[in-house]
């Protein structure tokens, strides 16, 4: 009797536990199952979502074209695109003007490397029970030249960075995830800090800002470019609250993302091209993508 029950315990609990952790540690060392799941799982999920996206897009398009005001909608969309482009251009020019002022006093100046944009669609947000992280699914992958760590932005600011990539699809870690860390500086005083997420819908936190450092509520935070993932000068967040802590050497600072994290539909991928002049930055792809839609 005792032998039978101990055998049952072995078959139902101990053996599955041992098999699971053997698989887990083997994958942790080799990454084979990760690559397999990404190649097969992410790819198939992406393809499953594609027809639905198409139906949704077509039905919305029919509604917009035939039941709503035809010209006003298309003109409004075009103007919105123009407005977004002007906004990002304005932030870039402002940052460049401020940078030029500072660099006038310096002897050596390394020109920023060129970056190009590519537009893409968001297919889903935090898909499935194993999402774990605050992520979105994009309809671009390895075949489009994507690799992990590629910055993902919208005309309003930084959204996150590419985390996993399959042949045609990829997942993006959003800046609201607690595992996201971005080196930032505030526009006005150039005070550096590390921007950390606190979960979806929660305010962002800025760490390691000394008590005597200048930083005000309402200041815009820009990427500092120090980590080498994001280009310097992209707007990320706006400071909402600053508290001077008595127990810490650093200020407690909260911020809100400039990008609406609710339902981004189209985003921009930033590709680093050290050799390019950067003349065509921000042109084309997103506009053509939106026009296609």
């Amino acid at each position, binding site marked *: 009797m005792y032998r039978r029950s101990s055998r049952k315990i072995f078959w*139902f609990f101990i053996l*599955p536990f041992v098999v*699971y952790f053997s*698989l*887990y540690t083997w*994958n*942790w060392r080799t*990454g084979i*199952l*990760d690559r*397999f*799941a*990404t*190649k*097969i*799982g*992410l*790819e*198939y*999920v992406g393809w*499953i*979502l594609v027809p*639905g996206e198409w139906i949704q897009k077509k039905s919305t398009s029919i509604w917009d074209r035939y039941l709503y005001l035809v010209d006003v909608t298309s003109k409004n969309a075009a103007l919105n695109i123009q407005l977004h482009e002007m906004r990002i251009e304005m932030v870039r020019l402002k940052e460049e003007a401020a940078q030029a002022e500072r660099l006038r006093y310096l002897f050596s100046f390394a020109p920023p490397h060129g970056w190009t944009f590519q537009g893409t669609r968001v*297919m*889903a*947000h*935090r*898909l*499935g*029970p*194993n*999402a*774990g*992280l*605050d*992520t979105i*699914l994009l309809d671009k992958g390895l075949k489009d030249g994507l690799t992990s760590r590629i910055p993902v932005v919208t005309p309003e600011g930084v959204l996150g960075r590419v*985390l*996993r990539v*399959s042949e045609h699809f990829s*997942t993006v*870690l959003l800046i609201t*995830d*607690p*595992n996201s860390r971005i080196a930032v500086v505030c526009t006005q005083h150039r005070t550096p800090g590390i921007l950390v*997420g*606190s*979960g*979806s*819908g*929660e305010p962002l936190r800025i760490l390691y800002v000394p008590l005597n450092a200048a930083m005000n509520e309402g200041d815009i935070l820009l990427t500092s470019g120090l980590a080498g993932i994001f280009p310097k000068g992209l707007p990320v967040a706006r400071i909402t609250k600053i508290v001077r802590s008595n127990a810490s050497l650093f200020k407690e600072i909260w911020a809100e993302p400039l990008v609406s994290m609710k339902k981004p539909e189209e985003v921009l991928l930033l590709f680093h091209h050290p050799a390019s002049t950067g003349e065509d930055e921000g042109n084309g792809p997103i506009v053509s993508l939106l026009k296609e839609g």
Partner: protein
Amino acid sequence: MVQFLWWFGFTLSAIWLQKFFPGVDFLVPGLLICLQEKKYGLAGWMGFVWMLLQEGAGGLSFGPGLLWYGGLVGFYLIFQIFFEPENIFFVIILSAFLGMWHFTVANIMALLQDVIPAQWTLLRESAAMFILFPVAWRLTHGLYRRWVPRDPT
């Protein structure tokens, strides 16, 4: 053929529903139905395919999918001794377990993979899983009974 088409359509619809309910698994009622119908071979194959899809779409390294579906199968095998598996109370107890299991698996994986879990988001997803699972199961079960003929055995 009907079986194949049914499970194919179910998989497509469930993944589509997951797009609208972040963090909720709509494939898990299918696995429960396979177990309730005592189609253990089919449960194994479908479970493997669904685990692969969920692992691929997820943000963490390989592991949570296996633990998630393994937990469901373990719970089913133990509690079917005490309850009638097709009884709605069994399904409600199972949905409570799945709600807690979702939170537990995410935290275990976060600990093992050295990532920080967003606890409030996980709690919201666990609550959604608890509420939506019985509804999803009832709907899936009803459609399955309507469309898929029972084995003569």
